[in-house]
């Protein structure tokens, strides 16, 4: 798509969308939202970028390798936080009872592991959307070339 209007608008919009996505992730424990929603917003911003420019341009911004690192990293992060509760002498995925809770309810840095877990989920969801979009569209593109 080489429409200058779309490109310009997207270039302007994408950072805002991403900031909004991060907001949704980070304020998941305070307001409606959370890892899944915020991750979806983040992922869709990248998809938007790739759609409006070119697939390759998108791939330059966020390489396949990086996205698969993020992909696994989100899950590993989640499990490691779960094991943190275990390391602190409590059960798997324990939050406040294991001493992870800090801050007053309502503040940004509060709720202990919930914030961190949301981050992991957000990264995971965003990279999943992006990776899936990329692989499927590349597949289609290469299939078209062969025909």
């Amino acid at each position, binding site marked *: 798509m080489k429409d200058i209007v779309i490109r310009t608008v997207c270039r302007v919009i994408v950072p805002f969308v991403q900031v909004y996505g991060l907001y949704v992730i980070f304020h998941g424990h305070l307001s409606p939202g959370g890892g899944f929603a915020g991750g979806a917003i983040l992922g869709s911003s990248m998809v938007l970028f790739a759609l409006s420019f070119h697939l390759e341009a998108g791939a330059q911004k966020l390489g396949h*390798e990086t996205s*698969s*690192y993020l*992909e*696994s990293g989100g*899950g*590993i992060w989640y*499990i*490691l936080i*779960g*094991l943190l*509760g*275990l390391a602190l002498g*409590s*059960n*798997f*995925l*324990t*939050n406040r*009872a*294991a001493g992870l809770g800090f801050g007053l309810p309502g503040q940004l840095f509060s709720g202990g592991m919930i914030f961190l877990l949301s981050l992991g989920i957000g990264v995971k969801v965003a990279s999943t959307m992006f990776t899936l979009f990329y692989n499927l569209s590349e597949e289609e593109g290469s299939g078209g070339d062969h025909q």
Partner: protein
Amino acid sequence: MSLHLPVISIALLLLASFVMPLLRRGARAAALPFTLSVLGAVFTVSLYLIYLVESRGAFSYHVGGWPPPWGVELYIDHLAVYMMMVLSSICLVVMVYGARDLYHEIRAEVMSWYYTLYLLLLASMIGIALTNDLFTLFVFLEISTISACGIISIKKDRECIEASFKYLILSVLGSGCVLLGVAMIYMITGYLNYDFVAQELPQAIAEYPYNILMALSLFIVGFSVKSALFPLHIWLPDAHSSAPSPSSAVLSGLVIKIYAAAILRLLFRVFPAELFEVVPVLDILLFLSVLAVMAGSIFAMVQEDIKRMLAYSSIAQIGFVFMGIGLFGNRALLGGLVHIFNHALMKSMLFLAAGLIIYAAGIRNIRDLRGIGVRMPLTMGAFAIGAFSMVGIPGTNGFISKWHLALGALDLGRPFFVAIILLSSLLNGIYYLPIVINAFFGVKIEPRSEHRDVPGMMLVPVLILAAGVIFFGFYPGPILALLEQAIVL
């Protein structure tokens, strides 16, 4: 610390599967040892858990430290550790085999994906075995469904894609049924935890009879699609015969059984026993299992592809497990449950042996197996042991499960099922024994393709499983002792 072991083993498997795609280039060679060591660790953990449960009884684990109705609970009882042991042991042995076999069935680029899916499959099955929560059950069900499809379709074959697609569609249908059932149960009881649901259900029966029945039937349908009970088995032969041999072994040996174990838990721990006096669910399961036993054997008799024959035979064997559930007696249930392990041993061994034959001689057709016993005596010897076990010759573990099933049927005064069991044994004999006879004593056919040497790393797992078949045929004591405590009717 030891109480955390069940959840640690799940977390370890998940962690390993997450790490697996990160192993690139140089580290790729580490994928296999890494996978094997994780599987070995889980197997060791499962053995230790058996010891733990034997010594201090069943215990429950509250994930996140939240008590049951609020948080997720894992319940580690005898049945759970039994299933965990079965799953992890067979998975370990099959993976040792797959280490060499997979390279000629799938491309090297996707090997790490295969390990990932394999570990995820094991993790989800262990999750299903351990969980005490309906929704967690559903989540793990989803994981196992998708990863099971993944390890079929990873072999880039037209047949594989078709089969796994069919499997996916039907399996997702089953998952949908289960989800709907879970929702209904939650709607009328307000709980997701098994124990609390069981507490609430007797009251709920009076108020919402249709809901509870619908939920029950949805569970049964969902799980029978997944475990390929007779009229819903149509996805199984394609899926299990076209998959790579290690996948077939795991799918046929374990994946269809874990759903049977899950439905067993639901039926006997969640739903009240009075329900079964009014609703003939168990009878329906029983007769479907009888049909499965007969139809599976008869279908298997007309097959020409060896893996397809084994797949049909699995349909018959899952019928035995369901027969144990449907008979609803201590001893019959013992027979059905011990058949989970026994069949996992022998069927995975048979699939691996078939895979070895395909690997070494490139033969899939049963007629071409003539005289192969002379060329591959150890492989065919293991196959023969498996075949004897299928027939139920004493001294093999197939006899043990049939013995207990038949006695269980007689305990309940239903000799008809004994006759069915024996008849199916005879049918098994009719299609398994000629293979063995022809392989060893048949007139040799000149091999069409060149004969590859069988690597020891592939042969050893098959022999280990064959030794297991014999060993547990003579000393089933430990398994039976464990299961006797698992059954609380």
